[in-house]
């Protein structure tokens, strides 16, 4: 049986199946062309899009595999550094011993700022090989929000472990409605407006991801427990 993996729909990073041999070409392309470029006006220059992460963030991924030896690594774009993710979970499938649900995480606090790619592979030359979109790790990304999410029961084919929330950082902001009013004056001062996306919105991947995230029963945006439908709007 061929090695297979299934990526959780709640993983915060998009992956594509790309051969290791074309890594440089992939990174190059992926760093230069903004997926929403078609939505820009013809006279506008092509934009570059890469997912932003801050060094205080943790990337958490869940991957189902039908083989042993799955590897998840963060590698910089010149391949000079490979940092393995740590494994939080390896739950066997009750009906199929070789199948496992795996959760990996990487705290970015020890990572140097720069451009990175996450690589998922099985160590086989012609085996599994998925690469993430480019990630830009920095100490601080202005105008971004960290969305953390978890659920009390398995959701979207994803297992949630206590104390290990998933998170995704996106362009956006939380803004208090009726700014300047005091809590004691008006009840509605507790209402927030969440705006997601930069000048060109978010890529379709995040649109799909957020739809799934809003179904989770524990969602925080920038550490504020979210009334996830409340005041949501797109720029």
């Amino acid at each position, binding site marked *: 049986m061929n090695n297979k993996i299934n990526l959780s729909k709640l993983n915060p990073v998009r992956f594509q199946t790309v051969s290791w041999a074309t890594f440089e070409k992939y990174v190059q392309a992926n760093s230069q062309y903004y997926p929403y470029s078609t939505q820009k006006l013809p006279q506008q220059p092509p934009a570059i899009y890469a997912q932003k992460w801050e060094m205080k963030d943790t990337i958490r991924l869940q991957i*189902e595999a039908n083989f042993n030896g799955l590897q998840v690594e963060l590698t910089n774009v010149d391949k000079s550094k490979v940092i393995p993710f740590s494994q939080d979970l390896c739950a066997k*499938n009750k009906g199929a011993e070789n199948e496992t649900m795996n959760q990996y995480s990487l705290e970015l606090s020890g990572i140097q700022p720069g451009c990175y790619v996450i690589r998922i592979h099985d160590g086989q030359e012609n085996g599994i090989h998925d690469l993430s979109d480019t990630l830009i790790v920095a100490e601080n990304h202005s105008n971004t929000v960290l969305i953390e999410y978890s659920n009390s029961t398995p959701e979207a084919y994803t297992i949630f472990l206590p104390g290990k929330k998933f998170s995704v950082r996106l362009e956006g902001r939380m803004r208090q409605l009726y700014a300047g009013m005091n809590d004691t004056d008006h009840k509605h001062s507790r209402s927030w407006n969440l705006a997601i996306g930069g000048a060109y919105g978010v890529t379709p991947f995040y649109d799909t991801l957020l739809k799934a995230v809003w179904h989770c029963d524990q969602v925080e945006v920038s550490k504020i427990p979210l*009334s996830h439908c409340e005041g949501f709007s797109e720029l």
Partner: protein
Amino acid sequence: MQGNDFLYFFTDSTNRSFYVENGLVKLSSVPRPLQFTPGEWQNLLITNKRNQKYFALDRNFTIPLNAVEDGALILKDQFYKHGIETIVNLVILKQHLFYDGTEQGYHYKSFYKGEFDFGNFVHSGPIVTINVMEGGLSKLIKAKESTVYEIPMDHPDHEWIKMDGIILKEGVNFTAVDMELKKSVLGTYIIPPLIFSSSDSSQSPGVSFYSPNVESMTSNSFNYLHTSSNSIALAYPTNTAPVVLRITGPLYYKLHRNDAGLGIRLRFFKSSQTAANQNVYLVPIGGNTPGQTYGANVNFNISLEPGERLFFYLEYIGVTGGIDTSISLLPSTNLRIDYDFRQTTSYIRCLKPYTVFSELIKMISDGAYIPQSNVLALWDNLKITCGDAIRGLDGAILKTNLSDFFDTYNVDLDLAMGLIAGVLRMEYKADFIDYLNPIPLGSVKNLSVKPAKDYIYNTIVAGQRDITYDNVNGKQEFNSKVLWSTPNTRITKELNRLSPYRRDSFGIEFIRINLEGKTTTDNSGDNDEFVIHTAKIPYGYYFLDNRPVYMLDRTLNSGATGLIEPSTPFNLFFSPKRMLLRSGSFIRSLFYKQDSRKIVFQTSDKNKELISGGVIEKNDLAIGSLAAPHFMPIEISFETVVPIDLIETLEASPVRAFSFEYLGITYKGIPVTAGIKPADNESQTFILLSSPDNDLTQLINIFE
């Protein structure tokens, strides 16, 4: 490994899967999913909408599905071979991930089951477009709730009620014909002509009254009267007890000529009397001066045995001196006969409410479903019968439908009916509302609040439809139509709490009295359904079939007022005021912040004077005194993300309320409309009826 998110099955009525093999449609008892998913499935919107009548959730579907390849072949095969009534279900299973702390895995759970509506089947090229509808019993109930079914009253589970009668009051009037009654012409013994001028009821119970013709009797008048039919009254031979007639009023006569040797005797006389006691009911007469008018006050209590007649006659006694004697009874004579009558005890067939409920569902579903009801088991002493059964006719048949059956018991017991975990249940409304274990919807947006106009009324009509009786005692009937007005003035709408089944005890008794055993006489009430309140415990078993016999329940009669004779009427349990009180939770739910106001008694078609068990029928009803409300008549709508498993949750327990959070405050409500788009769980607009526990005043300072 993770498989398909959804598996689709086409199944038959016994849950076997249709599948295609070598171009042929086959059935498999092992579940076999379709190879090709129906198109448009992603746009399917399932709406759970509260059915106002049954107070349960109905599911509706909005999108026709496009079946292709194997799905289309199966649908075409069934349609072209069996027509639009063929049954093919769409069953969708959804894959779930489970994790027990160490191991994980996948399983498919039932997600949705609906039935294809072949009435909307369209075959066009390779595609079959067809609507999905709520299948199974829900579909059948919608289609057949008003269809009248026949249930024989000699059903194997039938029971008996001992009908021992209501004491009825009756009065009739007689006057006289001004006719000279000459001894020389008519002889010694004369039956004078009287006119049976009127009666309180069009058909007097237990006694027939007549206008006797003038008649000359033989000298042996007593023997003559033993066999004559020229009487003023005849007690029904079928009576089982004597009827005591109270005869009162003035009797006037004019003496035209008088032979000094003769005397005048005016007598009431029973057909069983003898010469020896001929003067027991002798009318005292006045003087004997010719040309004078005399009057006598009649005041007798005369007891007639079954089949006995009562006569009135004149006798000229003594020896004549040759001068003729004659008198005339005068039209100013006004004799009144009053009597109490209680019809002979009879035993009538009845059915327990659950028996009827179960039979109706069986007939609606061709025997596929058996309903359940704790409440109908609890109230099995509210028996059902029909006009023909009350008349004691063999072969009596109850003709009724599910809609009327539900309405009858709902107005009395405040019920709801719906599917819970696949079983049709009729229970208290309160059992269809679970605020203790609400389905959490989390935070919601676009909250909107308004009065629930479907649940606001300015008048309430309760009781039963008006019945016109031809008996004076019918005026005493308390189970009639009663109108109340509510404090609401801005919405003009009437809440109908009239029972389709009759419960008028006097009406039931009139049918029994007037038509018992008369197999060739029709009556407008023959096909009416009736409910009779009996004792819970049978007092015996009927000798013919050993089925239980129940006494009428008269526990509320003690101390009752507002009835001429309060000890024998029955069905006081069903009085209109009691109906409202037993539905107090629902009635109170119709008023928001009006506990200090009243529901004001307006009119009653018949007897509004009844007071029984402390309940005064014509008194107004303080809203705050009613039982705790089920809900508030406030509709709250909002947009919300739908819980992933809402379909399964509602199917397993459609009685659960919803809870939601708005600006940090948690509210609860019962769904009026709850939409689900299963494919992507898009945010939907929900409408809830507010829980009575919500403090809606917290919304005053909300400005969004």
